[in-house]
């Protein structure tokens, strides 16, 4: 009798469990229909070597989500609020993949975004593709991310290869604006992957554009004397000099070129060392009139930029950087797609993202004028910003000059260098 009692109890327990479980679902369904929640998985390097940039990304996205939720969430989904599920990739590809699996299977996120490091984003997007979860890539620039034939990957930032493309578009626009011909180019670049990659792009574009390349010169970033290089540039006498440099060599080349009075019509740098804050300080007036290409600059002439940057600065203590801006924009692109999808079905969200045509709202703090994705999921209109270093009464500063829509009001670029 005693024994039977135990079995009886166990039986009742199992029975009860079997009843309660579906009940829980029944209870859950109508409840979730009222305050819906959009779950967004966000994989970022929050520790490890890229922690500081990962953190900046998180800050700008937190700010965007706060704004969106405060403004009433996703209206077409009955005011659904957005909840972020952050995961730390530690800049490791395998960690990113594992976190994507976890976010999709355990947290049941509706969307994914991240992962800052191209090396992490690349394998992680494959996970999202497998589950059909839309993946918004704000900043990872490696070309191959949108060239995998995936249907669920959407990238906001300009691709790696577009940096060189935009430098050449800029040279073209410069010639038109100033009605002056550029015939010869010189390429001077650090001899690492980065510099060589740029040089390969430049050589192709120069051939296509009909420019004559008078100097194609790699140099070691550790060189202690740049005067041979400066002499070589001077003797090659190019119209436009294109540079890829790290910080110490950027300073040294700039100063040495000034000493040897090397004066091409324009000098166009590629971010990196030239965008390092200590470059402006150490090169001083020798840096004047150098053009530099970057993702974004705090002075791009678009509505809302100043307010949003001020808000960010007062919250976190520093200016928005190009990458944080892309991360911020990504959130508004997502909201726009959710509004049009009117559903949390990943397929519906993906289709809405593919039809994105964003031309206004906070996302337009970008330097370019519209966001639309091509069939590979790349933001077609993403463009970089060209700045010119100049002193217009407040010391040397970086002034946006291109694209024309982003140019600082009242500023006319100096070309050729006087």
């Amino acid at each position, binding site marked *: 009798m005693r024994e039977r009692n135990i079995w009886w109890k166990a039986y009742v327990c199992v029975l009860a469990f079997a009843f309660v479980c579906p009940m829980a679902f029944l209870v859950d369904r109508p409840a979730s229909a009222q305050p819906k929640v959009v779950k967004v998985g966000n994989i970022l390097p929050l520790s490890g070597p890229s922690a500081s940039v990962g953190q900046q990304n998180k800050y700008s996205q937190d700010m965007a989500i706060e704004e969106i939720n405060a403004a009433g969430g996703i209206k077409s989904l009955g005011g659904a609020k957005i909840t972020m599920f952050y995961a730390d990739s530690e800049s490791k590809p395998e960690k990113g993949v594992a976190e994507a699996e976890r976010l999709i299977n355990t947290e049941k996120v509706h969307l994914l975004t991240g992962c800052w490091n191209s090396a992490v984003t690349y394998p992680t997007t494959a996970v999202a593709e497998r589950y059909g979860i839309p993946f918004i890539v704000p900043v990872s620039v490696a070309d191959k991310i949108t060239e995998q034939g995936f249907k669920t990957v959407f990238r906001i930032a300009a691709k790696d290869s577009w940096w060189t493309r935009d430098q050449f578009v800029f040279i073209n626009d410069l010639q038109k604006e100033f009605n002056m011909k550029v015939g010869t180019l010189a390429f001077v670049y650090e001899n690492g992957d980065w510099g060589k990659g740029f040089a390969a792009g430049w050589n192709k574009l120069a051939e296509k554009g009909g420019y004559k390349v008078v100097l194609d010169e790699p140099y070691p970033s*550790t060189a*202690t004397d740049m005067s*041979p290089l400066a002499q070589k540039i001077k003797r090659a*006498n190019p119209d436009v000099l294109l540079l890829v440099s790290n910080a*110490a060599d950027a*300073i*040294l080349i700039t*100063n040495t070129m000034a000493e040897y*009075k090397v004066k091409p019509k324009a000098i166009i740098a590629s971010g990196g060392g030239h965008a390092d804050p200590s470059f402006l300080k150490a090169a001083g007036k020798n840096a004047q009139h150098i053009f530099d290409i970057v993702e974004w600059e705090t002075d791009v002439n678009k509505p809302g930029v100043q307010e949003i940057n001020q808000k960010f600065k007062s919250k976190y203590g520093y200016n928005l950087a190009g990458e944080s801006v892309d991360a911020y924009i990504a959130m508004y692109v997502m909201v726009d797609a959710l509004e049009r999808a009117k559903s949390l079905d990943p397929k519906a969200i993906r289709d809405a993202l593919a039809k994105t045509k964003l031309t206004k709202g906070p996302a337009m703090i970008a330097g370019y004028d519209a966001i639309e994705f091509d069939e590979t999921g790349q933001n077609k209109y993403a463009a970089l910003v060209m700045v010119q270093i100049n002193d217009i009464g407040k010391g040397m500063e970086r002034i946006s000059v291109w694209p024309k829509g982003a140019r600082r009001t009242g500023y006319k670029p100096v070309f050729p260098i006087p």
Partner: protein
Amino acid sequence: MMPVTGGLPTGVRQRPQLEGWMLFILEDTINGILMGSIYGLAALGLTVIFGVLKVINFAHGSLLMVGMYVAYWAVILTGLHPYLALVIVVPVMFLFGYFLQDIIIKPIFKAEKDVREPITVIIVTTGVWYILDNLSLLVFGPQYRNIQDNPLRGKMLEVVGMLLSVPKLWGFFAALLTAVAIYWFFQKTRTGRAIRATSLDREAASLQGINQYKVYNLAVGIGTAVAGIAGVSLVPFYNIFPSVGVLFDIKCFIIVVLGGLGSIGGALLGGMIIGVVESVGAQFMAATWTEAIVYGLFLVFLFLKPSGLFGVKYEW
């Protein structure tokens, strides 16, 4: 600078005429000699320390870095002409080297006094290198500094169409004067002779009543002071940052081997050879290749004349 067919087999595709061509080579050679003499000056301290202690000082680049920071702050804080700052830099660096040897390296030396080539001391100098570089990173931060308004910055001298850098010219004369002064000191003064005696045979010197550890302190002090002079000659046109020594370190070693370990004139000449290879070579090939040539030269010397240009054949 009219283009002409044939001529330089180089990345410069718009080729200059022959006359200009000669002028270019001359200009590059002079520039190479000027920059090379500064390399030689940087290596001079290394060769002095090696000549006496028989120890490769791996911290030499860091000593150069310290010298540059001392020179930088001396100029920034007092507003002196960079070369007048030598009045501050040389004694400060001498004392720095003297006590570095006395407090940190000497105990190891004593522990190893029965060994002819104290290898642990080399490891200690490596430790000093890391500590100094990271200490300056902590104290001064990673940013690149240079002295924006000093009377030498960006000054160029125009001689028959050639542009010569004035701060490097100063460096050239500083290097010559320093080399001559050290040579004179070693040859003519009592202390100098004591140092040379110790460098030839430390036991015999001790038997003559020379305190070898004091001589070592002096030698490191002098070597460090020379690194300070090299720092002063670089400051007017170079960037100052915590790892700047590393860039010069390897060059100094090559120069010292090229010129002969312990040889003062050799260091200067070795520096100039490297400077000229870098400067003239770069006009015929990519700058990346001139580095390969410098290292190749280094290997050739190790194979054919391991004692260097002026090194003595017998073992130290």
